[in-house]
Structure formats: structure tokens, C-alpha cells
């Protein structure tokens, strides 16, 4: 389980000149890494030898005056990045999408039901308190219980109990097996804070919060005692909330900031021309969906759903809504960045004849309302219109209904009043997490209400099965089938996976970039350095 860590460690040594290239290769290959991969890693490490120092200013497209340092209500990308900068979690997703231990040195389970996390020793919080299992218990308690208002509450409902076994070992007892539980604990809400102080921004992370002005900026200083090696290179960090894309891009072009997220796709071709700027795009797990609710007429009808899915010109959407910065979806939420992406399944293309055939078979007639708002994702209304446009060729009449942005998530999405709407999913690092967030019959966010069809029943059974399954190959097989079921029978139309497009000044250097979140897995501050 610790292979990755070990390689990181080696890379660090190589970079620092403690070992030479040959030693690195030898050791890396010994872990079972393939030769080319090891070569790449070595190349990266040398070419981009991280340097310590400098003030890193990062322009974040989010931020609100209601932001806090409490990870429980972390709602946007600003608090997400900020949280990762000063705090650690039990596990983390590394820049290759692999799960590695963070504050947990290692973790294990025999039945996927009882999970044991062995905690790292010698780690100190910013306030000097040394990290131990009581902090884990307190931190998890913050997100659980009836009174908790944490956004992670739903994630942890399966946790029956948490026990400390000595100072550096914690045992989680789950209601039911979940092979992906270690992934869940990497969720950005579940930051580990010192017992008794969940909200003031004390963590174990690479940077210490100096000042935090909600909706404005967060100023951090390097943690001199940071336990992680080869991380946290900058001396000082300023995270600045710049919501207006033009202002953000201007700030980067005029050197007011060193990096930024969410490049405005509309102007990206011009933006690229700035010689001092690197544009970076990563296909992640985030996707745009158009969930159809099976319990609302007429979407209970399989043929109608299929007709609509076949009538979408996915490539056009990628080209126009994402200006090419994204990938077509196959009507299921699993991205190529996920471990078990079903690459065997053929890509669904627009097929007007087939769509018309299914539509005819469905027996439906009349307008089909499609609710959209740019609150769902940028360009949602445009996308809905493009869908309406292509569907009309198959004889289907889609009526695009523009909904108010404010309250969209409460009043439109996942609401029986609207049968079909636009939606955005940030993606989840694991298949199970994604499925159980939005597709299983026990989640409240099952926005398609795909619960009762035979396909759905089978799907739910398979997901449970996979959770308890620790064998990789078997899990892969199961998840492939799950993806097929959603794609075929499910209510979700998933035409697009959007890329994370960010930009940085050429003075900033980095290794391979993670795909699980925007901005190098939202950990750019910890991972990047000044060239």
C-alpha cells in the first residue's frame, strides 16, 4: 500500500541529491514500477527539482464572505484549497490518482467493514499539540451526530463507531462493507484538527494560517515543522479570491498573481498568446449531466430516455460549451481519470434514426420540458438549447425552461417538480463513492430516481457486492457492468466531462498534475514551487 509513498520519498532523495539516478531507478523498479514509468518519474524529479522559497499568490475563482476555516461547511473551491493548504486528512489522493496515506501511515481491513488506520507519529499541529488518535475522534465527531451541520455528514452515515486503539491507531466500524472507505476519508471536509478546536484553522498542514479574510484572501506561512517531505516549497502563500474571470486573468497577466484556476474558456485562445503564461488542462472526474427523473412522466419510459440519449450531439457540446476543453461522456459518471473506467463500452454517438425509432416506440408526444440555469454549470442554458436543437431532428420537441440561478439546487435539481434538468457533478475519486452519491437507491441525491427498474435493482446489488470485494479484478468487472447499466437503463444523460483549465505564470513549476480536483487536486500550494 505504501509503494507510492516510497517512490515519493525516493524522488525527494533524488532531488535533494541524496541518491543518484541509478539508485533511484533500482529502488523504484524494486517496488514493481515499470521501467518507462520509473524513467518518467526520474526525469520529472530532476528536470523540475523543487526549490524552496518565494511568495506564491494564487487567484481563486471562488470565495465568499461567509467562508470559514471550518471544513464542515467548506462549500467552494477557495475553502477547499485553503483547507488542503493548512490541514491534512487521514488519506490523500496523489497526483496520479492513487490513494496514499497522509496522517494515516497505513490502513487495512480484512472485511472492508472494520478499518484500521495506523496514525503517523511525531506530527504536530500548528499550535504545538502533538497529533494523536483523540484528534481523529474529535474531528470525525464534528461531522457526525444529529446536530452536525457538516456537508460530510452524509458520507459518514455508514460509520457505526470509531474507536481509538492507543494513541496512534483508530478503528472504524462500518454498518456495511465498503472497500473504498479509505478514499472517503480523504474527502476535503474531513480535515483533521486538534481535539477541541475544529474551526479556528489549526491543522497539521504545510502552511500556517496567518490571516484569513473571508471572501478576500488567506495569508499563510510555511510550517517549519511540516512532516511531509518534498512538499510545501513556498515560504509564503496568499490565496486571493478573484471571482470575476476577467479580473483574474488580468491579475495573472499583469503579474499580480502567480497562478489561477478556472480560465475563462471563451477567451482562452487569446489568453494563450500571453508569452508568460502556461495554460494547463486536465481531464478530471467532473461532469455535466442532465438527470431525468424516472418517477416523473414521461421519463419512466425506457425508450424515451434512450431516444433522448441518442439524440445528443456530444462532440458539438464539447466543442461549443467547453470549447474543446473536455471529453464526451457515455451517460455514466465514471471518468477516464477513475480507476475502473469502462473502456470496453462503445461510445454512444448521435444517431437520429435510432433516436427516432426509440421515440416512436415510446409512444410519447408533445413537448418535453428541460430545466436549465447557468447555476448548474456555465453554459447550461446554451447546452440545453443545443440538445433541443439536435433532438428536434429526431422529431422530439424539447422546451428549454430557464430557471432562476438562485435556489436552483433546492428548487429545481433533484426535485419532483422538474422531471429533467441540468446538473453538475464534481466527480468522486472512486466508483463506489460516485455511485453511492447519486445513483444508488439509498442516497438522497439520487437525482434520477433510478431505483425500481430491473437494471436499477441489479445495479444496487452490484454496488453493494463491489463494496465488500477487495479483489481488484473482480471489482473492475462489477464496476464495468454498473457503468453499462447506468448508461443503458439509467436516467442520467452524461454528455460531457469538463476539463479543469487553469493557468500559471511560467515562473511556477510543478510535477505531474492530479486530476481529482482543479488546481492539482486543490493541492497546488503544497506541491508546486518557483522554478
Amino acid at each position, binding site marked *: 500500500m505504501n509503494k507510492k509513498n516510497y517512490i515519493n520519498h525516493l524522488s525527494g532523495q533524488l532531488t535533494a541529491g541524496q541518491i543518484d539516478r541509478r539508485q533511484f531507478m533500482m529502488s523504484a523498479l524494486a517496488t514493481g514500477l515499470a521501467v518507462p514509468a520509473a524513467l518518467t518519474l526520474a526525469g520529472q524529479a530532476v528536470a523540475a527539482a523543487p526549490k524552496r522559497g518565494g511568495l506564491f499568490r494564487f487567484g481563486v475563482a471562488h470565495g465568499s464572505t461567509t*467562508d470559514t476555516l471550518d471544513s464542515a461547511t467548506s462549500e467552494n473551491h477557495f475553502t477547499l484549497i485553503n483547507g488542503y493548504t493548512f490541514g491534512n486528512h487521514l488519506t490523500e489522493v496523489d497526483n496520479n490518482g492513487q490513494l496514499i496515506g497522509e496522517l494515516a501511515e497505513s490502513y487495512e481491513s480484512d472485511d472492508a467493514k472494520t478499518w484500521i488506520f495506523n496514525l503517523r507519529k511525531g506530527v504536530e499541529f500548528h499550535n504545538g499539540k502533538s497529533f494523536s488518535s483523540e484528534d481523529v475522534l474529535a474531528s470525525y465527531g464534528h461531522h457526525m451526530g444529529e446536530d452536525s451541520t457538516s456537508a460530510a455528514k452524509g458520507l459518514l452515515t455508514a460509520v457505526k463507531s470509531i474507536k481509538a486503539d492507543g494513541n496512534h491507531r483508530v478503528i472504524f466500524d462500518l454498518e456495511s462493507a465498503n472497500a473504498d472507505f479509505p478514499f472517503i476519508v480523504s474527502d476535503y471536509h474531513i480535515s483533521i484538527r486538534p481535539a477541541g478546536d475544529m474551526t479556528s484553522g489549526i491543522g497539521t498542514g504545510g502552511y500556517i494560517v496567518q490571516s484569513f*479574510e473571508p471572501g478576500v484572501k488567506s495569508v499563510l506561512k510555511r510550517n517549519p515543522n511540516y512532516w511531509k517531505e518534498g512538499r510545501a516549497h513556498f515560504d509564503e502563500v496568499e490565496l486571493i479570491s478573484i471571482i470575476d474571470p476577467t479580473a483574474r486573468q488580468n491579475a495573472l497577466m499583469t503579474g499580480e498573481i502567480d497562478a489561477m484556476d478556472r480560465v475563462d474558456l471563451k477567451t482562452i485562445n487569446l489568453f494563450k498568446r500571453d508569452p508568460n503564461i502556461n495554460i494547463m488542462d486536465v481531464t478530471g472526474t467532473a461532469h455535466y449531466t442532465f438527470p431525468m427523473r424516472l418517477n416523473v412522466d414521461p421519463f419512466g419510459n425506457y425508450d424515451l430516455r434512450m431516444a433522448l440519449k441518442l439524440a445528443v450531439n456530444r462532440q458539438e457540446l464539447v466543442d461549443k460549451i467547453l470549447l474543446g476543453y473536455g471529453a464526451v461522456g457515455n451517460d455514466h459518471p465514471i471518468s477516464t481519470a477513475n480507476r475502473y473506467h469502462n473502456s470496453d463500452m462503445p461510445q454512444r454517438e448521435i444517431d437520429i434514426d435510432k433516436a427516432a425509432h426509440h421515440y416512436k416506440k415510446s409512444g410519447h408526444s408533445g413537448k418535453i420540458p428541460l430545466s436549465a440555469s447557468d447555476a448548474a454549470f456555465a453554459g447550461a442554458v446554451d447546452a440545453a438549447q443545443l440538445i433541443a436543437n439536435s433532438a428536434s431532428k429526431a422529431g422530439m420537441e424539447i422546451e428549454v425552461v430557464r430557471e432562476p440561478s438562485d435556489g436552483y439546487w*433546492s428548487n429545481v435539481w433533484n426535485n419532483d417538480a422538474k422531471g429533467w434538468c441540468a446538473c453538475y457533478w464534481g466527480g468522486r475519486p472512486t466508483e463506489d463513492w460516485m455511485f453511492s452519491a447519486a445513483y444508488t437507491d439509498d442516497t438522497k441525491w439520487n437525482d434520477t430516481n433510478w431505483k425500481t427498474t430491473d437494471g436499477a435493482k441489479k445495479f444496487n446489488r452490484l454496488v453493494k457486492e463491489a463494496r465488500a470485494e477487495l479483489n481488484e479484478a473482480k471489482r473492475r468487472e462489477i464496476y464495468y457492468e454498473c457503468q453499462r447499466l447506468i448508461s443503458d437503463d439509467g436516467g442520467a444523460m452524461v454528455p460531457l466531462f469538463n476539463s479543469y483549465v487553469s493557468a500559471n505564470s511560467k515562473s511556477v513549476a510543478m510535477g505531474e498534475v492530479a486530476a481529482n480536483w482543479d488546481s492539482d487536486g486543490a493541492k497546488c500550494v503544497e506541491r508546486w514551487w518557483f522554478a
Partner: protein
Amino acid sequence: MHSIVKTILERLGLGVLTLFAVSIIIFSAIEMLPGDFGEAILGQRATPETVAAFRRQLGLDQHPFVRYIQWVLGAIQGDLGTSFSGRNASGVDRSREVVGLIAPRLWNTMFLASMTAIIAVPISLALGITTALFRNSVFDRSVNTATLTTISFPEFFVAYILILLMASLYPVFPSLANVDADTLIGERVYRTALPALTLTLVIVAHMMRMTRAAIINLLASPYIQMARLSGASQLEIIIKHALPNAWAPIATVIAFNLAYLVVGVVVVEVVFVYPGIGQLMVDAVRTRDIPVVQGCALIFAVTYILLNLIADIIGIITNPRLLHPK
């Protein structure tokens, strides 16, 4: 002087009533908005349980009327309450005092407003006077056209153009005005230059046109003809004879624009990432953080009322008829 004191007291009394009305309107408006703080904060991740927990903790499960009365009772004693954000059942209550949240931003807003006023008011007066002096000349027409053009551009667009010219093409000023409490005054002025210039362009036209109109309006008065016939020059006529009688309308317009600088600059704040009070209120509205919205609304209303009061007082002081009644 008695009449001034009376006017001030009368206006302050009315002002308090206005504040009440404003708070009721704002409170009901936010109540009418769909969703509440929990739903807004949690967004897509909201579950009925967490939302309910939020409602319990924030007291949102009480009747709106009860909450309003509680708020008013607090406000009367100078307690504007605490922001919803940061409150939590588990762990320490780190909710922020509304006053503490507003104060630094109010200071920023006031700083920007004052800086803009320091630039804009003299410019508008000077332009208003000179255009009145050289009315219908090429100078007058070009100033008029130029100022009309600047007010017909949306604020954010003026800001972008200034950024392009003065931060991007010819880097004179920074494009971000991200100041904080520790920023030194010199640095602060430098960082705030572009937003102040943007706002200057936005408000100069109005103030200048009104100054010009107020002066020209008076030029038809018999006492202006009298002044001319007593040998006063054009400049003297405008400065000494027209301007003293034009202060009341000019002060009203300036007060109106200054109030705008305090309450209406959220767009400029967004573009320049300036931590002002407008952005705070918009965010608070979006997240349904009622105490903060109420606090901001009160600040805005107080600003508006006070500025208008000052304008009225200037109107009285500069008018001997009101200052020295028979």
C-alpha cells in the same frame, strides 16, 4: 441656529423611522427568497437533516416575526447580532459579530469612497464651473460629450478599459486592489487608484452636469444682471454671485453620489477584488445570512440618511434666508 438644530432633530427622527422600514423590507425580502442559510451554504450537498440542524442552531425554526422582533430588540441596544456563518453545534462557536464583520470592510469602503470623492468632487466642481463659464463653447461641448460617454459605459467596462490602459499596456497601477488592515496608507492609495479612478469617471459626469445646470439656472436671475452691471467679470459672477446660491442643489447631487460610492459599488469591488461592504452584502444575500444583510442594509441606510442630512444642512447654512430668518 435654532432652525438648524430643529431640522437635524426632525430629520434624525425621520431617519430612525426610515431605518425601521428599511429593516422590515430587507428582512421580509430575504425571508421571501427561496432557501435558507443551510441550503445556500451546502448547495448540492444539502440533505434535509443537515438543513434542519442548521435551522435549529440558527433559530430559523422560529417564526420570522419572532426573529425580527428579537433582532430589533438587539439592534436598539446596539447589538446587531452574529453572522450565521461560522456557527456550529460541535466545537467552539466561532460565529462572527456582524459589527466585527462589517467594520473593516466599512473602513475599506469609506476609504475608497473618500479617495474617489477627493478626486471627483473638485474635478466636477471645476468642470461644472468652467463649462458654465464657457457655456456652448467647444470646451463645454467636448467635456459634456466626454462625460456623457463615460457614464454610458457600464462600470465594469470602464474598469476593464482602465485596467487595460493603466495596468496592462502601461503598467502604472496594479489591477488588483486587494488591501487588508495592515496595508500602509501609501500602498493603500496606490492599490486603490484604479477603482477610485473608475468610480470617478462614473460619478463626475452627473455632478459636473448638475453643477453646470445649477449655475446656469441662476444666471438668468436679476441679481446676476445687476452684478454684471456693477462691473463684475464673468468669473467673478459665477464664483461670487452664482455659486453661493447654487450650493444647495450641488450639495444634494454630491450627497447623492457619495451615497452611491458607499452603497452602490459592488461591481467595482468585484472587478478589483476590493474587500468592500457591497460584496459582503451580496454574499450575505446569496447565503441568506440575514443578520449580516440587515447590518449592511442599516449601514447603507444610515449613510444615505446622514449624507442627505448633511446636504440639507449645507443648503441651510449657505442660504441666509434659512440661516437668518427674519
